[in-house]
């Protein structure tokens, strides 16, 4: 029974996918209901699963996927607190996004396909969450990747969209190679890829660290960590609900989930955790700085996502496992909220450039309020969701003695608050900047605003589950071994302070224009560096892509000129020999006779010489 309902969580969206692939085109707009129904069923069952887990259930359902001799690869459904939590988050966000999309995608000609992809994406993500072994994890991982590819490139007529999709796929794929190698190393060294068996095994720390770091490369790609974060901002070319689903709650969280899931393995090679922490910190800081300069509403959110994912990694890396997981949980809600809010805005003004917006507060009340809730959560203002989790992470860095990381975390929090409210002030307050939109701007339909409200509710309250008021119930549930740190007034105060400072600064500059607009010159080299995203894209273009193409062209050239040249050359040489020897046949009978005589003499001399006859 258990197996049935757990597997239904995954199977129902898959079924929806299959139905929609076949009938989606014919059904058009009605496709949405199939998909939404499916995801709602999944959500319901996920909640039931969560309740069961809360009731003490901790189980694994397995079946063999492939077996060779006595090596078995199993697939299965691992249900524990972490997966149950993720299931609910994924299903919930997915459900809300899909509902939101009814409005957002209204009238699109590939409506059915859109929902098919969303269904399958959700299914892949749920499968990933359920994974009890690394093969399934990898399978689902790539499945998530490919559907995100299809969704980012959903408007593939747009060159930029298909480019972005390609980039997303390729960049994450590069990271996945590390994951793949880690898989191989695990198999070779342990003979199994089942997590529980692996976690129970003893590994040499160096090996464990190697494997963990390789595995973390996968997470770097998927969770858009430095230096493979470059795909995520571009991925904003996809429809906004997709951004909300993929780049907020689910796919990007997969990396974090992987690290969280594999935490026992990482712990066997502690160096790897340091590595995770450092990468996370760099990512958090760097993305936050870029977000300061971004002017596209979705790009800002994208960089903030990267930054927040960096926080999560930072948390996991410094040992604050529960905090990392907690931030994953809260972030899912408020970032989905922010994206959907942004979607609502874009839907209304048909632009993504924040400096073309303004004054939307008056026209889009629900969107504005919920967006501000999301912003507060992101900025880390208590009691909104983000505060509790982020604070825990910074606290973790502090208590574990990672001083540098701690301070960078604080600084990043400041930036976060600033760019978030820069966005809010510019978009929702002040005068409408682009008047030609003005008249048409109105609040989005209910299918869009209701999800916003629901997410707003969660953004407001989700953090409380892990707050000291409930004795860090969330952390205790997720990670019984990793209880949250006690509240540290210094850290908490500092983080509240920086959040408020950031908001104030944003208000001063964008809310009231008290600060001059040219506080930082646009020609300042640092500004340029940041505004150009640290030239990472250029770096990859010149260091990776151009050389790769050059090598490819060279090898092709080599193939055609040298290898095929040799093949054709041999044929040509044979032909040349042929036409050369042909000349012996002069047509003159006396030449022939002479050749015969010469042949005779040569045969005789040769045999005298070489057959030893004298």
């Amino acid at each position, binding site marked *: 029974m258990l197996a049935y309902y757990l597997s239904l969580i995954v199977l129902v969206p898959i079924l929806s996918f299959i139905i929609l692939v076949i009938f989606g*085109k014919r059904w058009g707009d009605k496709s949405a209901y199939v998909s939404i129904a499916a995801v709602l069923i999944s959500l319901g069952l996920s909640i039931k699963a969560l309740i069961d887990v809360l009731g003490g259930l901790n189980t694994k359902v397995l079946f*063999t*996927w*492939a*077996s*060779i*001799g006595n*090596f078995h690869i199993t697939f299965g459904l691992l249900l524990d607190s972490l997966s149950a939590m993720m299931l609910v988050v994924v299903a919930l966000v997915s459900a809300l996004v899909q509902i939101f999309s009814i409005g957002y995608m209204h009238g699109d000609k590939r409506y059915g396909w859109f929902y098919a992809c969303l269904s399958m994406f959700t299914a892949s993500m749920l499968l990933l969450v359920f994974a009890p072994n690394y*093969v399934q994890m*990898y*399978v*689902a*991982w*790539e*499945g998530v990747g*490919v559907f995100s*590819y299809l969704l980012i*490139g959903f408007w*593939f*007529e747009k*060159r930029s*969209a*298909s*480019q972005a*999709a*390609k980039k997303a*796929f*390729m960049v994450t*794929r*590069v990271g996945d*190679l590390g994951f*793949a*190698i880690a*898989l*191989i*190393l695990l*198999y*070779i060294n342990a003979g199994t890829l089942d997590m529980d068996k692996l976690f129970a095994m003893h590994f040499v720390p160096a090996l464990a660290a190697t494997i963990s770091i390789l595995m973390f490369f996968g997470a770097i790609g998927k969770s858009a960590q430095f230096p493979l974060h470059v795909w995520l901002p571009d991925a904003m070319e996809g429809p906004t609900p997709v951004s909300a689903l993929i780049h907020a709650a689910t796919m990007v969280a997969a990396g974090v989930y992987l690290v969280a899931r594999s935490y026992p393995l990482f712990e066997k090679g502690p160096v790897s955790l340091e590595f995770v922490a450092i990468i996370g910190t760099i990512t958090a800081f760097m993305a936050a700085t870029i977000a300061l300069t971004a002017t596209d509403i979705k790009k800002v959110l994208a960089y903030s996502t990267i930054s927040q994912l960096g926080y999560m990694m930072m948390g996991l890396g410094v040992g604050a496992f529960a905090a990392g997981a907690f931030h994953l949980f809260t972030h899912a809600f408020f970032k989905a909220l922010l994206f959907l809010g942004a979607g609502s805005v874009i839907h209304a003004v048909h632009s993504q450039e924040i400096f073309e917006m303004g004054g939307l507060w008056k026209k889009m009340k629900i969107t504005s309020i919920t967006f501000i809730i999301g912003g507060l959560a992101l900025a880390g203002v208590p009691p909104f969701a983000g505060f509790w989790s982020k604070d825990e992470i910074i606290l973790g860095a502090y208590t574990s003695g990672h001083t540098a990381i701690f301070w960078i975390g604080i600084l990043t929090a400041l930036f976060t608050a600033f760019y978030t409210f820069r966005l809010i002030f510019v978009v929702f307050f002040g005068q409408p900047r682009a008047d030609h939109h003005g008249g048409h701007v109105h609040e989005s339909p209910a299918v869009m605003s209701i999800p916003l409200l629901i997410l707003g509710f969660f953004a407001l309250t989700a953090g409380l589950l892990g707050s000291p008021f409930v004795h860090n119930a969330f952390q205790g549930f997720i990670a019984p071994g990793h209880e949250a740190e006690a509240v540290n007034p210094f850290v908490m105060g500092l983080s509240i302070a920086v959040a408020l400072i950031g908001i104030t600064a944003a208000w001063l500059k964008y809310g009231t224009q008290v600060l001059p607009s040219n506080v930082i010159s646009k020609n300042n080299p640092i500004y340029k560096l940041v505004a150009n995203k640290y030239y990472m894209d250029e770096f990859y273009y010149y260091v990776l892509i151009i050389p*790769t*193409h050059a*090598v*490819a*062209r060279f*090898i*092709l050239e080599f*193939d055609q000129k040298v*290898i*095929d040249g040799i*093949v054709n050359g041999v*044929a040509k040489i044979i032909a040349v020999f042929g036409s050369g020897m042909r000349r012996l046949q002069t047509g003159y009978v006396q030449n022939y006779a002479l050749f015969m005589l010469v042949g005779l003499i040569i045969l005789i001399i040769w045999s005298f010489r070489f057959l030893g006859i004298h």
Partner: protein
Amino acid sequence: MSNPIITTTIFLPLLGALLLQFIPRSKANLIRTFALLVTLIDLGLGISVLTGYKLGLAGMQFVEKASWIPRAGISYHVGLDGISLPLFELTLLLTVVAVLASWSIKNRVREHYSLMLLLAVGMLGTFAALDFVLFYIFWELVLIPMYFIIGIWGGENRNYAAVKFFLYTLAGSVLMLVGILTLYFTSGLGTFDMVKLMQAGYHSQLATFIFITFFLGFAVKVPMWPFHTWLPDAHVQAPTAGSVLLAGVLLKMGTYAFIRIVVQILPTEFTRFAPVIAAFAIISIVYGAYTALAQQDLKKMVAYSSVSHMGYVMLGIAALTPVALNGAVLQMVNHGLITGMLFLMVGYIYERTHTRDIAKLGGLSIKIPILGGMFVFAALASLGLPGLSGFVGELLILLGSYGAFKIFTIFAVLTLALTSFYLIRANQNAMFGMPQSWMGDFKDASGRELISALPLIILIAAIGVYPKPFLHYIDPAVNTVLQIIRGS
């Protein structure tokens, strides 16, 4: 022997080809239908073989043996085991697909289908033959129809491609013939029976020589770098059905022969040279991927990707671990399905656009969403997307190879990025984006085209989602192979 089903399956197409000659040339549709019927019946026979196959048993099944040239120790000996059975079935399936795919051929229809049926005889026989000479005959038999298929219905440069294909593979295989003869005379068994040779355990001073001739013969067919240059020409010039069968079946003959013959009859030599083979394999992998990346022609890209993918198979074979070998066998089938489908799609697209230049294409997913979608599907399968069959094979190969060849395997893994790169690039440039201005209205997939691709899609997905039943066929046979290796 009471029920010679394998023989019937092998030679039914020959009968079909003969009967085809009695249908008047002008009745093209009747010819097509008849050919389809023959291949379908053959496929039906194949399925009955599949259902009659006893799982979990090592060794050959459905063995049929008859005296043929007793003076030279040559017998007619066919049978299937878990390694040849999947390829046998793949051949039957792809033949049906190829018949459907070539429906649009308008000129010299009867000849086309006759040749295709003859081709099927050769391919099926190669996989079923258990006698060296029989094997060699079937092996070579494939060349003639393929030569004509490329040469008559091929593209612009068909003559060059057809001759190159024939000559190159012939040159490789005649050397193999010398190897076979040397084996025969040095084994002292006086038989060409593969099973007996496998069981006897072969040792000779000339084993290295024999190995090299076999290697050359098979490496050309696979094809392994640097013997691959016939492939892009042949694949690109061949008509769609020809490409499907070339990529889908003919290349497998090489890898199959490596497992069946080199590994099992010359185990010592194979183990000795495995690193060399692996090195060639890895060069093929990387090299094929790079050359595919540099292609502007969609079909050429798929062709070069075959070099790369077959490199993975060879790597798996060279590794000689149960997991890798299982993966290699499975990957042969997968590659047959996937690349077959890619060629099918490229062919169908070409029929509409009359160009395969990636730069000239674009937006096909809008113009012809079903075909475009199926192309994307096949491309994704080809790049090893989990959930589709390519992944399972590659995963097993890589898992199994690492133990034997660490650095090589790492390279193989890293090349997966390149693989994605060229396939995604093709997807993006040809399928996505806005349709080009020169494009008129194209008809999307017809029912016939859809049906031809459907079994491939289903199998690709089925193997990818649940490989266990497929591995059930392969694993015992692989174990037998490895026992021979361990025994040597």
